């Protein structure tokens, strides 16, 4: 035994050969002393080749070779945790100890696990972790991944990365920062991090309610908390910077309400129509805020000048969807299609001056979304079905048909071409027609989980091809959404108040009423009137 003054780096294990105790190195990134025998000549290149051919095969060629040759040289099995000897070309099972026999008889004491790439040392009788070898393994894995061009599905946690997910390993600088800031915050299930009240600065609840919804939008929160905004605006009036600051305030752990006077000032500067101390419309504020953020974000992208429609800023990535409008000529049945970007969907309600019922046939959206009509209440799905129904444009609104070369009657239909990651539904409760201004308080029931499949352009196409019964693929998760924020308006058109329900963690809901935050039940949320409904995609795909 080696006696040392400091903490021993050795442990003991019983050697199976002679039942004697042997000193073996415990885990450390320095690997083990037995690796040194391997690290000679061109070992790095040799190791790379082994990874490329037999562990992570990226090209079709190497895959074919791997498929054929990776079987146990002793029993022919392809399972049983196959390992490859590092000193010669020999594959053998681990589970049946075939590779152990080889190691003993040939004194080749290193092998590599063909499933996960780990290096096993027969002397230490365990997997060892050598920094240099790990580096090679990581690089080869990344290379193979890139070659395959895979897409992976992740729930909620993505921050739009283009590479294979790998666990985070801190850099030297990050380790330094962690050592200097030893305080750690644990997120438990009843933790209130991210919740903070907002002082009302004089009828500013229309702004406060939207801020609450935005600060609880998971992807937006991830973007700002990982410091992704690099400001290139010269002045101090960047709204994105202010947003970033706002997230810092919300996640600081302070429990006193925040006073958003800087935000209000910036909004007044950039969206003049919202300035003043009178009550404004929360929906208008949402659109104005997204617009300003989008414009200020574009300054991040070098490409903005060329194509204003193909912006890749975080706002576009999260909120922008594509709405398809199909105008069908009633004479020649030619279809003219346009696709427009949208940030929200404004839905008419029953009780307004435009008739709501009847809806068109086809596509049983309500059964899919688990809503029942037994109570007679209008559902969100009803509103969406109405929104996507074919509409006769009437004889007074003839469209010039490029097929017929004359003005003809037509039908128009809206469907979703591309769904945004966050879908915002605006229930049009405020009627401003020539005759009257009023608030429509009809109750509209909305679900916690929403499937947008029936309203997609692709679904419409299959309906038109005669497939009325939508075969719902239970594994297709692309169009599934979860509710995460609800903005409500109480009161009348003249004087009212906005509040927001937001979702914290999976099933905890809180009501945000300016400076006051209270716990809410799911029932409270679903029973509320609903003015703006925010849904987040359940599954996110990387491109």
């Amino acid at each position, binding site marked *: 035994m080696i006696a040392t003054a400091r903490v021993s780096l050795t*442990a003991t*294990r019983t050697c199976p050969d002679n039942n004697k105790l042997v000193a073996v190195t*415990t885990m450390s990134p320095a690997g083990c002393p037995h690796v040194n025998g391997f690290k000679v000549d061109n070992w790095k290149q040799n190791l790379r080749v082994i990874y490329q051919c037999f562990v992570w*095969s990226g090209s*079709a060629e190497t*895959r*074919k070779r*791997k*498929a*054929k040759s*990776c*079987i146990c040289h002793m029993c*022919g*099995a*392809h399972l049983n945790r196959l390992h490859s000897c590092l000193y010669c070309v020999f594959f053998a099972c681990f589970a049946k100890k075939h590779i152990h026999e080889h190691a003993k008889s040939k004194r080749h004491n290193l092998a590599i696990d063909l499933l996960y790439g*780990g290096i096993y040392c027969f002397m230490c*009788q*365990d*997997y060892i972790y050598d920094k240099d070898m790990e580096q090679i393994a990581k690089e080869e894995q990344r290379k193979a991944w890139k070659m*395959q061009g*895979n897409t*992976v*599905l*992740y*729930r909620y946690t993505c921050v739009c990365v283009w590479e294979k997910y790998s666990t985070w390993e801190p850099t030297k600088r990050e380790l330094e920062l962690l050592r200097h800031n030893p305080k750690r915050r644990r997120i438990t299930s009843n933790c209130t991090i991210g919740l903070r009240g907002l002082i009302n600065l004089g009828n500013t609840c229309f702004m406060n309610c939207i801020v609450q919804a935005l600060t609880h939008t998971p992807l937006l929160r991830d973007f700002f908390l990982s410091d992704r905004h690099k400001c290139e605006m010269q002045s101090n009036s960047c709204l994105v910077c202010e947003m970033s600051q706002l997230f810092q305030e919300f996640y600081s752990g302070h429990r006193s309400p925040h006073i958003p006077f800087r935000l209000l000032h910036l909004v007044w500067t950039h969206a003049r129509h919202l300035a003043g101390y009178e009550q404004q419309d929360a929906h208008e504020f949402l659109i104005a805020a997204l617009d300003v953020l989008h414009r200020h974000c574009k300054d991040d992208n070098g490409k903005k000048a060329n194509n204003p429609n193909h912006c890749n800023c975080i706002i576009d990535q999260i909120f922008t969807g594509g709405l398809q409008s199909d105008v069908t000529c009633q004479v020649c049945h030619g279809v003219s299609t346009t696709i427009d970007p949208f940030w929200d969907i404004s839905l008419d309600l029953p009780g307004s001056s435009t008739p709501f019922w009847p809806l068109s046939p086809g596509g049983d959206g309500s059964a899919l979304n688990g809503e029942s009509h037994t109570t007679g209440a209008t559902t969100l799905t009803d509103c969406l079905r109405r929104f996507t129904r074919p509409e006769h444009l009437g004889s007074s609104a003839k469209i010039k048909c490029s097929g017929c070369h004359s003005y003809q009657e037509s039908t128009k239909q809206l469907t979703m071409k591309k769904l945004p990651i966050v879908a915002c539904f605006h229930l049009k409760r405020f009627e401003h027609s020539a005759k009257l201004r009023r608030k429509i308080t009809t109750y509209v029931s909305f679900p916690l989980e929403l499937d947008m499949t029936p309203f997609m352009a692709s679904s419409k196409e299959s309906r038109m091809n005669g497939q009325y019964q939508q075969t719902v693929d239970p*594994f297709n998760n692309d169009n599934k959404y979860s509710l995460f924020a609800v903005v409500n308006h109480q009161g009348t058109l003249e004087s009212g108040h906005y509040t927001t329900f937001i979702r914290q963690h999976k099933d905890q809901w809180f009501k945000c009423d300016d400076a006051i935050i209270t716990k809410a039940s799911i029932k409270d949320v679903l029973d509320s009137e609903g003015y703006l409904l925010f849904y987040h995609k359940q599954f996110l795909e990387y491109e």
Partner: protein
Amino acid sequence: MSKDSQMRAAINQKLIEMGERERLKELLRAKLVECGWKDQLKAQCKDVIKEKGLEHVTVEDLVTEVTPKGRALVPDSVKKELLQRIRAFLAQHATL
């Protein structure tokens, strides 16, 4: 080798050749993280490490102790989905 294991080997070869095995592995990985299986197993591993002692535990110890529990904890829905994908793949490449 029995006919059954011959078939398995042939299917495995095809899956590797077409890169499908890697895709299935990634899909499985994502599903097992989502349903909380990874966290459950992590907790199991921590228990084994505490039991055996950090200085003495080997990967082999963990594999032996945790594998049966791990297998039992995989949700049926995940198994169903993987099977469905494999069947679909085989249907597409029906030369086997």
